[in-house]
């Protein structure tokens, strides 16, 4: 032993740790009980003299939580509205100083590093916090809390790539989570798939995450299926159920939504998610006042709940209370500047107020955040159209179609725009694409205006003397109620003209010369000219 003094150190320190743990065991147990009873100050008091790492963490953590609790209590009876933003966790500064001392001395373990990071983040020092979290993760890779905190601080993919993270299986979870957050859904889904294949097939967490990812890319059916599966496996789950209710809402599945709401109320009615679900439920039943009420309740439970602000804005919009809607959306933006729905909602509000130029700014913001979302592009296009900026409007509609139009409206609008501008070839081309698009997607959309398209195409072909195509369109027109008469009329016209042509007329060359003029059949390539 004397010959290898160096070897003894770890063994010694190990036993030191154990010794410390043993010494502090009583105090720790006592404090833990107090801690569980939410008597943080009391817990901290009894841990003061302890020297083991565990006790130290609990000591500091109790102090932190005590500060947070006092902060929350203070907000209730502050001296006035001005103090609203000024109530602070007074313990933070002291905690930070103590922790930073220990940090420089290298005495922090994974948990205390995590706490240090949290403190830094609360003090608005994101850069330092990121460093500390990364360090904490290296020290204790399996602590998901630290990963989650880190995920809140990562704002873009470059930053994510620049982090040096430990190569541990949990890193895959983190990366998948980050990809979902950063709207890189494809990568996220791939990661989750890999994780499932690697043996996490039964994890409800992964299923829910995949469902959320599908929700983000508006793949509603997939997401619904996954959520249903999730509910079967984990019937008392409340997490993510607000997303589920959003999906049900979009699909207008009233009974399912009602069932979900009732179910969740039974489980726990004072949860943010539950309130959101009920809000959605009322909204779907067009009881917007009640819906707004429940969203407000959700916000009371958690003022930083972003979704609720936006949803409340939507409800106010439904109630035509524009100013309250603007307020709600602004709050949502305050919580998260990158919330595209709130920006979009603000744009809609101003559009309702008939301020197309004003709302452009908001739509642009929303578009910036979701460059490949057709809804923003269509909204932008509509605003430009109202401002008689046809060139810009065309660009927007075409781009909306190119990125995959969700509502299948962009082409129709583009076609109508061309029609207005007397660009008949382009209009016909767009109508054609539109019809193809509608039929290829299979399901029948409510607002589909196939008849309009067919009617226009019929007239177009007729004018260009392509009678076969024209008659085909006219026949298809007859399938629709609103265009039946016109279809028949067109058919009659066509047969008349055909009769004239077939009877040898005096002027034999007229039709020939007409046929010789090459009718411009628009190729899809032409449309590319106005892609931005």
């Amino acid at each position: 032993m004397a010959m290898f003094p160096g070897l003894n150190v770890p063994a010694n320190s190990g036993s030191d740790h154990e010794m410390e743990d043993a010494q502090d065991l009583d105090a720790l147990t006592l404090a833990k009980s107090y801690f569980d009873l939410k008597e943080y100050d009391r817990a901290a008091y009894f841990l003061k003299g302890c020297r083991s790492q565990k006790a130290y963490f609990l000591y500091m953590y109790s102090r932190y939580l005590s500060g947070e609790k006092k902060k929350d209590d203070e907000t209730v009876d502050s001296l006035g509205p001005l103090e609203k933003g000024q109530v602070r966790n007074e313990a933070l500064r002291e905690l930070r100083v103590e922790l930073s001392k220990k940090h420089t001395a290298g005495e922090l373990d994974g948990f205390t590093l995590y706490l240090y990071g949290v403190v830094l983040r609360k003090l608005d020092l994101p850069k330092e916090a990121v460093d500390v979290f990364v360090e904490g993760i290296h020290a204790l890779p399996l602590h998901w809390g630290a990963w989650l905190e880190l995920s809140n601080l990562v704002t873009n993919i470059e930053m994510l790539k620049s982090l040096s993270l430990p190569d541990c299986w949990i890193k895959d979870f983190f990366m998948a989570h980050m990809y979902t957050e950063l709207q890189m859904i494809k990568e996220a889904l791939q990661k989750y798939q890999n994780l499932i294949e690697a043996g996490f097939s039964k994890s409800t967490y992964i299923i829910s995450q995949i469902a959320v990812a599908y929700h983000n890319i508006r793949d509603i059916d997939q997401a619904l299926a996954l959520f249903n599966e999730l509910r079967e496996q984990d019937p008392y789950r409340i997490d993510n159920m607000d997303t589920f209710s959003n999906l049900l809402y979009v699909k207008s599945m009233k009974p399912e939504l009602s069932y979900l709401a009732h179910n969740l109320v039974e489980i726990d009615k004072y949860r943010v998610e539950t309130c959101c679900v009920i809000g959605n439920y009322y909204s779907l039943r067009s009881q917007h006042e009640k819906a707004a009420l429940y969203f407000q309740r959700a916000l009371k439970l958690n003022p930083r709940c972003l979704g609720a602000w936006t949803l409340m804005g939507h409800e106010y919009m439904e109630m035509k209370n524009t100013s309250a809607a603007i307020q709600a959306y602004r709050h949502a933006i305050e919580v998260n500047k990158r919330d595209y729905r709130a920006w979009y909602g603000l744009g809609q509000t101003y559009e309702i107020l008939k301020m197309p130029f004003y709302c452009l700014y908001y739509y642009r913001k929303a578009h910036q955040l979701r460059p490949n979302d057709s809804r923003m592009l269509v909204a932008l296009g509509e605003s430009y159209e109202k401002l008689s900026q046809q060139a810009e409007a065309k660009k927007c509609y075409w781009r909306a179609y190119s990125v995959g139009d969700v509502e299948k409206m962009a082409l129709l609008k583009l076609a109508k725009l061309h029609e207005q501008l007397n660009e008949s070839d382009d209009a016909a081309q767009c109508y054609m694409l539109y019809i193809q698009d509608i039929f290829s997607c299979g399901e029948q959309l409510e607002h589909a205006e196939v008849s309009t398209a067919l009617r226009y195409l019929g007239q177009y072909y007729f004018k260009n003397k392509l009678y076969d195509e024209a008659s085909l369109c006219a026949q298809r027109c007859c399938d629709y109620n609103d265009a039946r008469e016109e279809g028949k009329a067109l058919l009659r016209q066509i047969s008349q003209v055909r009769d004239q042509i077939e009877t040898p007329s005096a002027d034999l060359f007229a039709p020939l010369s007409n046929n010789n003029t090459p009718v411009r059949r628009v190729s899809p390539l032409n449309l590319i000219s106005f892609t931005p």
Partner: protein
Amino acid sequence: MDQLHRFFSYCSENPKVNGGFSSPEERRHDTTLLYEMTASKITLPERRRLNKLILPLQQGPDLTLGQFLKTVEECCPQTAYAVKLRLHEMADGELKDMEYFFSTLPTPFTAFDTEAYKTSVVGLFMRHMLLAYNKLSFSQVYKLYKSLQHYYHSHYAKPMDGQVPALVADDSEMDLTSIEDTVGDRVDKEELDTPLHESELRSDNTPSRGPLSQKQAEYFLARQAYLLKNDENKALKPAALQEELNNMLKFNPDFAEAHYLNYLNSMRVQDIFLSAHSLLHYFDRLILSGNDGKSNGDEGYGRSLRYAALNLASLHCRFGHYQQADLALQEAIRIAQESNDHVCLQHCLSWLYTLEQMKGSDSTVLTEDSVKMAAHFCLPYLASLGIQSLVQQGATQGKTAHKLMDALKDTDILHWKHSLSELIEISLAQTTSIWRMYGKSTMSLQQAQLLLNMSSLEPVNFGVQQNNTEAFAVVLCHLAELHAEQGLYGAVSEIIQHLKEQFPPHTQHAKLWMLCDLKIQFERHMNEGKYHLAEPLVTAITALNQLEGLYRKAQVLKAVNRSTEAYHILQQLQARCEKTKCTEMVIRVMLSTAELHWESSGFSTALPVLLQALALARQHHLQSLASETILHLAFTQLMLGVPEQALNVLHEAVEPILAHRAVMDKGCAMLLAARCQMAVAGFKPNRQGQADLRLAASALDTLNEAAAYFSQLNCKERLRDVHYLQAQLHRSLGQILESNKSAMLFRLLDQELQSPAPPVSMRL
């Protein structure tokens, strides 16, 4: 009574708010003051001073304790000491001391004979205060006390005034030991705080650390906004102000006005993104606060919507996005029309013609309409703004001078009636410009001085007088140019220096003086014949004003004998100017073209151009340009061999030139006159002809005068010409000594200049 006062301020702080206890501790001192005022015997003048202090204290922004004590001390040191003592008692005592204080306050309902009577200012304040205090819950009272302590100790923590009384300092130390758990703890905390200060520099370096109270914030915003408007240099630097605003918004995100100031601040640094963002944010917030009246009428948020769109239009206009501005303006007009808001519509209309003007199209009709409507709706500001705009357009389009002056006079009456000081300034600046355009430098100078020496009608707030408007910039630029014309370059550089300080390069009006500075430098170099120095300035001028830049380029090219290029540029310039109806420039271009013709001895081709220029100048009453044209004409005639005629024409122009024109022009006119006289006298160089001696002598006088002017400007080339002619004249008069002297001077200058002298005959 001392207490009353403190209490007071508490409530007045935020009367709307439940309890009004936004930052109570800040005002406690006021109450203390009142108490002490009544409690102790004070001499009458002191009492009067204190009474006068009450209102500002109550309505003004929150002070720090140090500031407060200082103000009171100035009035009555005795009271100040009493207040301090009282505060000290409370802050270093216990909670019960504060409670005792409140309980001893004479309630306004019992006190009949004091200032605290219930309907007095003080009484009202006290009632507010007591009410607010009684409403507080236990924990709130405790918090109040804590904040009082903090307020008090923060003053003494950093002894900035150097007047910390020993008594207090001692006490507080003692108290520390008693209040805090252990001394060690306390020390620890302070020690802990130091590293924080270093790392959290951003929060500690700012002028006002931490959150501001409502009043402080409002005061801060009002002050900064006022400074931004009136004297930008005294406001915080853009970055510092931004930081301050961010800080404010962090603690109080609902403070809409801060967003507006943010918008103004971003405009300062020409940040379109941030300014648009802040502007929209402000109006989003405003819509919330103006929520009460949901109607679309004058009140309510319909109104702010209209003005939001209008403001957006003005924003785009400022950044030169005319199409965007147009769209936003149309939107504002449409909404205003829908809700029958004539005032807003009127504002829109005035923006509309401004926009049209900026786009370079004729907007006279629009402006006239705007003026009529504004007069109809009794909006004097907009009406006379419209008239001023009309005057400006009229001046460029050659309206008769007396009409313009009449219009300006009428609006001036309106301005004085309504005390529209801003418009008075603009009007003066405009008169300066118009006189200058007409070539009446004395009048112009007088008007400029009038504006600069006028004391503004605006109240002088924060020790700043309004003096960074566009009007001031314009007038100062004119002043600089006028001095430059007289060759007073020292004064010019002083004026430019002042302009630079007053309107830093990043500000809105900085381009005015930049262009003016460049023009003056250019002229100076040209006069001194340093063409190589003038040339680089052309690029800078072009960046600020394209037409001006082209003209100057042509001048430089002409001076270095690259006539063809110069001619091309002049042609191009003339076409463009005629399109935009820029008469002054057209005439100047014509004169330059005529000069080019001279160089190729095409004197007869120059004549029609000059006559055309003369007609134009007369039509637009541009006297200075007219007399310059006459100079050119006379020279052409001289060259064409009709010196008598030239002399006649010249006589017509000499008077205005001597009265109003630049020194350079005076010199040229004199030189030309001398040459005409010589020609009339039948004087021929190198030949002892029968010269008229009397005329020759007067020509000599004229030459001397010209020499005086040229030497004033250090214009050596011209001086050389003058000496040459002088030498010849002297010789012909038989004055050999003088002749030799002049010849020697000529020789010296010729050596210095190196460039061969162009034939005297070839230039004006």
